């Protein structure tokens, strides 16, 4: 039973980290352009060079 005292807070803490990450993502505009973000992966940061 002592395991519970460690595991449950651990599970909730992990969940909270995920929740805060989600809040940060929404607040910083990560969901504002879902289509564009999906396409950006194909962009070549190397300027001038065609992909």
């Amino acid at each position: 039973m002592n395991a519970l005292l460690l595991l449950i807070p651990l599970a909730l803490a992990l969940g909270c980290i995920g929740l805060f990450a989600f809040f940060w993502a929404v607040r910083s505009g990560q969901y504002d352009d879902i289509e564009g973000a999906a396409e950006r992966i194909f962009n070549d940061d190397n300027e001038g060079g065609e992909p």
Partner: protein
Amino acid sequence: MTAAASGLQVAGGPPTLAGYVTRGADGLSAIDLFVDGIHCGGCVRKVENRLAADARIASARLNLSTRRLQVRWRGARGMADTIVAAIAELGYAATPYAQEDVTAADAARARTLQLAFGVAFFAMANVMMLSWALWVGDDGDMGPGTRGLFQWLSALVALPAIAYAGRPFFASAWAALRQGSTNMDVPIAAGVLLTTAMSLSETVRGGPHIYFDGALSLLTVLLLGRWLDQRARSRARSGVTRLAELAARPVALLLPEGSTEAVPAARIRPGQRILVAAGERIGADGRIETGETRIETSLITGEWLPQAAGPGDAVLAGMTNIGAPIVVHAERAGNASSVAEMVQLLEAAEQKKGGYVALADRVVGFYTPVVHGLALATFLGWWLLGGLGWQPALVHAVTVLIIACPCALGLAVPVTQVVAAGRLMKSGILLKSETALERAAEVNMVVFDKTGTLTLPAAALAPVPDRPEVRRLAAGLAAASLHPLARAIRALDPEAPALDGVIEVPGLGLLWAGPEGDIRLGSAEWCGVAAGEGPQAEAWLVAPGLPAIRFALTQQLRPDADRSIALLRATGREVVLLSGDRDAAVAPIAAEAGLDAWQAGLLPAGKAAEVARRVQAGQQVLMVGDGINDAPALATATVSMAPGHASDISRNAADAVWLGSSLAAVPEFLAVAAKARSIIRQNIGFSFVYNAIWVPVAVAGLVNPWIAALAMAASSLAVTLNALRLNRGGGGA
């Protein structure tokens, strides 16, 4: 006149956008541009890389969903013009982005729903973890101490989450109740709050009936549906906004020193002078100061033939100048334009129509009393007749409310509408109003406007003699001009080489000194021939050794017009044509489209009255129109559609806007609406069957928390899957 007009063009050049530039606190200049023609990540990359290559530009970010480009740079405001020119070189048109308020409100609402969904999902997952332990340990493996700990932990996670994630529902339900009405959110909020209160009291008492997981999964699923719904609608709205952006070209304001500055139409003040180039819409009401031209008034009056206009003539915002450049002396501010009278008609019509009560809200209207009555009966039955104490009897009664909470109902309608809106968007139809689909499903009469609705917005060339050498010559000359008639002539033979040294004489025509003598393409008078009949937009070609040839604009039926009308008839709907144009112009089009019910010469108020008469006679009317003169009729009809090029006021009045030139969008809209209605009805029917099965179980007091959770998830899944069927198969159109 000629000299004045050509003088204006010299002074003009592209107007500067400096007025749209803002200065940030960091000393950087910034402008928001709407970039048209962006459709993939490659376009985004091209534009961003091109701008990033300029060392002065601090940042450039293009949003693919909204086509909005935010650029910030160090230096003068005038750089905005360089940026637009650079984007134009890449082949995209950039215009200032002005609809800040609409998109900002949408974005804020989307963010609220996203965050609420995130919180609900997090809490649901964690409470579910604890609930599983409670369900599995239900048969006695779990000691009362551990059970109490798990219940309290669930409450600790669930209570703040429900308070946060439930806000959209609580707020909406509270607003409805305060007005003495009810909507979908009232039973949802009641269900969630009762579930939470009962679970909390059970936790305190150490009882077994904990439904935190049920309340949270309900919120999660409903919030997801709401968010998708909001996203679909915001996308449709931004599509419509985009059309407005494109139409709301900046107005070229003439500055005292003779140059021009681009300003939003709303910033034009009476007494200012604006320059309207050939082919542009007039931005404000006023009088022509200089310039002889032809004005296309179809968006205002429904007449398709351009009218001649000269100094002293009144012009209205929304008319198109298709002749030579003119200077207009503004008499009213750009945002208080001509359409004041039209706006009054429009408001009157909208007030008369009143609120349409959505199907789901109507269902809830009688659903709520029935379910709440059942819950009361359960309580009284168990307490007075069943011999239970009042506390367990109350638990049974609340369980009935939880099970009967219209979760499937709350999800069935938005999900179906999201799927339907997505499907319509694929066909180029943007749905603006929430209840438009339901209203469209009942339509049994379709009323069309003529100019720009049944016919294409741009007039086409009337048939010309099929002599390739003549077409070639005319097209070669016409390449030198941007005049709409010249463009139409150019399209006769786009391959023809453009002739060198063509002189454009503004307001008159084109002149080319050929080897055998002058060749002219222009007005009858200038070419020295007798003008054709009527106030046509026409041009004559005179060349040595050739008879004079006339090119005239004519109205052209949209592709698919006759087929779409036949289709509407085949589905049992009456089709009527109401036009503001003259009899002689309407009759041939009506005949060509196969319509025998038509009326011509209607004023805007007359059109609205005709539609109102039919609506009062019990007809469900779909009005399709594009002009400012159609707006009151659009607002009067049961449901309305406008094509993408329509005037701002009509696009705003219409429930749906379609893109593209085919009229097939009209039957498609009605077909999808009918299919959506049948799916919504099936889903509502399904919810009733589901309740008919589970409510008696709940009344009998046999429901466990895990049964409630399972039943809720299963019903949500079922209605969602059913809604997805809308995407399959043809529209039945």
